[in-house]
């Protein structure tokens, strides 16, 4: 039973991380119907930002500021910078393609992904950069119940993930801004006709989505300790999967999808086989999709004929 709970905690933590990345991905999809394959690379940039913040304040072993402050700076800076990067990308690469066939921005997104990944390789080098989280966040200071351990980084990830997800859900559903975002998502031209500043709204969505990716990147750095230019690919893939399985464009769906994948991976590895874990997880997700073709929480497209 302890084993079960241990795998549960592990699954929830990675799942929360996937969910955050998926959330940003899904938001962007919501307003632009764009599969932003560069989303994972924004996450990678976020992880680098976190790493350089640690370096800037003296490195993991000799921090010159208190850890909470460090964390705040890391998250704020990653959110801001990566969010800004997202906005720039939207302005530069996606905006000219707003009215193009849907598949065109897909290739642009791949181009962006190539570009970001190799730019990181060029600027930061190929070697793995290491956070050394345990040196400044005591990994053993978490909660231990029986033989199940939840370390403090996992707690941080779970709590922050939850807060961000709920906050975003509130923002989209109950604020004027959220209403504008939903309006743009539903019918861009109609929204524009009402005076909604479509460019601003889309830029804002990109900012939020990318900032989430940045924050998730820092969390991944804290959790997995390492960052290199290629970590974005897998993260992007997981986000895409989570978003689609949950029902693409739906915020609770992205959360659910992320958690589901995290848990599935954890339990499949734990109880079945790590060798076939990806195959089995894929199989499971395919089964989910076949039962619910528009994702777990996605509404079946109401097609009025």
């Amino acid at each position: 039973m302890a084993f079960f709970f241990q795998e549960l905690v592990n699954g929830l933590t990675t799942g929360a991380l996937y969910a955050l990345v998926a959330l940003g991905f899904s938001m962007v999809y919501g307003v632009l119907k764009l599969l932003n394959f560069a989303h994972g690379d924004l996450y990678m940039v976020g992880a680098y930002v976190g790493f350089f913040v640690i370096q800037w304040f003296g490195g993991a072993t000799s921090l010159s500021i208190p850890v909470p402050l460090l964390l705040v700076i890391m998250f704020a800076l990653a959110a801001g910078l990566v969010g800004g990067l997202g906005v720039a990308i939207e302005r530069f690469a996606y905006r000219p393609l707003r009215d193009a066939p849907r598949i065109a921005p897909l290739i642009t997104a791949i181009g962006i992904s190539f570009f970001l990944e190799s730019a990181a390789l060029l600027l930061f080098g190929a070697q793995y950069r290491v956070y050394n989280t345990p040196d400044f966040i005591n990994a053993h200071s978490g909660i231990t119940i029986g033989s199940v351990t939840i370390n403090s980084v996992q707690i941080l990830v779970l709590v922050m993930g939850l807060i961000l997800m709920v906050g975003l859900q509130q923002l989209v559903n109950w604020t004027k801004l959220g209403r504008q975002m939903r309006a743009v998502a539903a019918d861009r031209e109609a929204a524009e006709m009402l005076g909604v500043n479509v460019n601003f709204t889309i830029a804002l969505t990109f900012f939020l989505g990318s900032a989430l990716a940045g924050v998730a990147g820092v969390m991944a750095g804290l959790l997995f300790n390492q960052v290199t230019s290629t970590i974005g690919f897998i993260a992007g893939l997981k986000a895409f999967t989570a978003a689609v399985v949950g029902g693409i464009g739906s915020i609770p769906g992205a959360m659910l999808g992320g958690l589901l994948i995290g848990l599935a991976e954890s339990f499949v590895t734990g109880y079945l086989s790590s060798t076939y874990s990806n195959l089995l997880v894929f199989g499971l997700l395919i089964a989910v999709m076949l039962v619910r073709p528009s994702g777990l929480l996605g509404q079946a497209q109401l097609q009025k004929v």
Partner: protein
Amino acid sequence: SSSGSSSSASGGGGGSSTQACVASIGMEGPLTGPVANLGQEQLHFAQLAVSQDNTANKTKISIVQGDTQLNPAQATTVTQQFTSNSKIVAVAGPAGSQEVEAVGPLMARAGLPFITGSATAAALTTGKYPTFFRVVSKDSVQGPQDAKYIIDNLHPKALMIVDDQESYSTGLVAAMTPVFQAAGIKVDHESVSQKLTDFSSLVAKVTPSTSVVVLPWQVAANAQQFGRNLAQQHKKAVIFGTDGLFSPGTFSINGSYVSSFGPDITAIASDSAIAAQAKAKYGAFGTFGPPVFAATHVIDEAIASVCKAGQTPSRANVLAAIKKTDEPDSILGQPIKFDAHGDLVNGKFFLFKIDSAGKYQLTPG
């Protein structure tokens, strides 16, 4: 001044002929893509070797980069690029055994010598690729040796062995597993993708009786994370890693073992200059660079010796010179000499145990 020139008895000196000794070396490795960290390290050490040897030998050797992304099809294209470039007289690389399998025939047809610093599959040196050499030992030597060490010294009742779904890793696992099984040890064979960075769920599977986890991986940072996950879940198993895990500063889990085809060049007095230079120029490095340094150095010296003999450094001449290589010492802390199939004669292994400060201590074994 460096170990390279001081240790090389065969080459040395430099081209005394009036003509400058000009040639190019192709460098094949995963310079981008998922394991760019390995490829870039290899490239950096090749560049270091060439610049040192050029100064020492008064040669004008340059490097042509070929990015394979550890993908055999790309390696084929790169190799075609190299074989059609007549200036290229030898190749350092490619990195992976699959790639060697893919390009071996092309290299042979072009008479282009190639020396890898990391392809260790046993099947490569059965004589099918006459221009192939390697400065590292093969799996069939390292695997059983490591397994024997583990059995004799760590006495596990059960162990977990995790491959990373690359040819390097699966090769070693295939060589080790029978030895463990013959010794009656319960083996839990797992496998994870190199791209995975979270091992907590795998670590949860480490049972209390599992006292050793063997990680024949290429990405040291992943092993570090594995070790941390072990500690977080209060698991006591000892990590036994191979070559890729040799990476002081990155992999530093107290009490782990690393078996490596290269020594810790930072700890070898004669290598300290190179190590310092590499560190200053490119940052931290692991064990994938030094063998490529050695490979490149072998080529450099071969070219220099051809020039010195008054001949043009053609592929055939360089190939002949490489075959004759006999370095009493090298950056790898061992002599370099090839057998008829291109394997290193008497390839050595170095075993390190990591202490609580993260230092790699050479362990006799």
